Structures are given as structure tokens and as C-alpha cells.
């Protein structure tokens, strides 16, 4: 790597992002096609991410319900935007059509109860995304890990 040691901090922290392609490209073929992992070959069942997508859509609708009732719920508007981006990314990955609306949820009676509900939902969502990441083929691992990380970080804002 043509980086001097002194350039390392400025270089490596930025270049590592660019290094993604290097690692992913060299790993892609052998990891994607040869391993014994069960989901590598085209499987006849539905895409396992459809379930994750449905859960993300349900989460998004929870935010809609909370924000309709408590527009100033701490953190909720910013976090909702992240989930909308997650839904878009997952939908593109599994080639799912635009959604049927999930079943409506009734909003809690107070802002505090609403935020507590959202915190619990984020914790579950992060666990689901983590499980999906652990089971995913290489090409999907980074996106799913990133979604899991984002959802755990949301707990910082929802208080």
C-alpha cells in the first residue's frame, strides 16, 4: 500500500473506506461460490430478507403512529428517516414491490410510553438485523451489519 506511516491516520481511516472494494473484490468469488454455507446456492424458498423487510416496514409505521400523536417525541423524526432508508435499501436488494401497509398500531398514551415502545422496538430490530447479518452471504453482510449498528445507536437519541 503506497501510504507512508506518517500519512496513516489521514490515509488509513479514509482509505479503509475505499479499501472496502479491495477486500470485497478479492473475497467475492471464493467466498461467494465455494463455501459450505447453505444459502450460497440458489435456494427454492423465499428470500430470508423478506421477513426483515416486513419487520422494518412495521417499525416505520410505528414511528408514523407515534409522530402523528407526539410530533416532538425526542429523536423520533430523525430515526424515522433512517428506517425509511433501510426499507428502501432492503426493498432494492430483494426486489420487493412497494408495500402493502402493515396493520396499524395504537399509540401509547404519553410521550414517555411512546419512546419506551420505540426503544424496545429498536432493540428487537437490531437483534433481527444482527441475526440476518450472521446468516447472510458475503455480499449482504455489510448492509445488514450497518442496519443493526444504526438501530442500536438509535437508543442514544430515543430518551
Amino acid at each position, binding site marked *: 500500500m503506497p501510504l507512508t*506511516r506518517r500519512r496513516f491516520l489521514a490515509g488509513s481511516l479514509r482509505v479503509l473506506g475505499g479499501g*472496502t472494494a479491495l477486500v470485497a473484490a*478479492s473475497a467475492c468469488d471464493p467466498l461467494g461460490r465455494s463455501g459450505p454455507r447453505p444459502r450460497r446456492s440458489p435456494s427454492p424458498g423465499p428470500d430470508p430478507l423478506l421477513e426483515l423487510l416486513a419487520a422494518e416496514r412495521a417499525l416505520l409505521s410505528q414511528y408514523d403512529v407515534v409522530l402523528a400523536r407526539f410530533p416532538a417525541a425526542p429523536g423520533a423524526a430523525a430515526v424515522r428517516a433512517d428506517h425509511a432508508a433501510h426499507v428502501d435499501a432492503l426493498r432494492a436488494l430483494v426486489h420487493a414491490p412497494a408495500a402493502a401497509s402493515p396493520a396499524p398500531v395504537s399509540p401509547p398514551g404519553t410521550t414517555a410510553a411512546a419512546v419506551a415502545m420505540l426503544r424496545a422496538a429498536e432493540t428487537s430490530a437490531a437483534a433481527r438485523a444482527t441475526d440476518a447479518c450472521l446468516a447472510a452471504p458475503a455480499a449482504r453482510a455489510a448492509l445488514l451489519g450497518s442496519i443493526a449498528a444504526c438501530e442500536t445507536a438509535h437508543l442514544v437519541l430515543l430518551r
Partner: protein
Amino acid sequence: MTASLSSGAAAETAALQQVLAAEHAAVWGYGVVGGLLPAPAQEPARSADRAHRMRRDTLSALLAGRAATPVAAAPDYDLPFSVADAGAARRLAVHLEKGTAAAWHAALAALTTADLRRLAVTGLTDAATRGLQWRLTVPGEASTVPFPGSA
């Protein structure tokens, strides 16, 4: 089969080395951050520093266990911008967490062993969480990002 499995293992080792290099840089960077924050604000920097040292040690041990020589820290690093006061120190902390998040994110595709992939999700999650905490202390930073670690 044997050849492709071993190239998978080599890709894992290379990915772990890249994350270790980023963790070394973060440990060095938090030395700068900690020195510029006022005493009451130093605990988050100390806690982040401890967390990065722990990851560094975990990665070094993992690499040694794979019969690889863990990459060493550089003796010196260039700062990405001038860091001379507490505000710049907080921005540096944001930069350090963004860099380590990117390193873990980049490693995820190469890490196919379940324990290693879990370690990478945890490393990415922790960097994303600390990064968000630091961003909240920097005026003008986005409070949350939908895909931590991605460019």
C-alpha cells in the same frame, strides 16, 4: 475446495489486519482527544480509548492465533485537520469513530466465520454508537446516519 477455503481464511486475516490498523490509529487519536477536553468531558474519551484498546488486543490475539503477525501501530500519524482545542478534539473523535466503523464495515464481507462476523457487527455497532454520541456534541453534524460505516 481446499484452495478456496484457504483463500477465504487469507481474506479473513487481511480483513482483521485492516481493522487492527484502524484500531491502532483510533487509540493514538484518542490520546490527542483526551488531552484537549476539559476534565468533566474526559470520561467519554477515556471510555472510548479503553474500548479501542480492548478491540486492538482482541484483534492482535486473533491474528496471532491464526499464525499471522499483527500489524504494529505506526510511530506517528497525521491528523486529518488542525486539532488545537476542545471543539476540534470532538470533531477528531467523530472522525476516529467514523474511520473504525468504516474498517469494521469493510471487514464484514470477508469475515465468514460466525464468531468473526459477530465481532465485526459488535465493533461496527459500538463505533456507530460512540460516533453518534460525539456528533451530538459537535454543532452542525447530522445526528444520525442510516448506514454507519458506509462511505
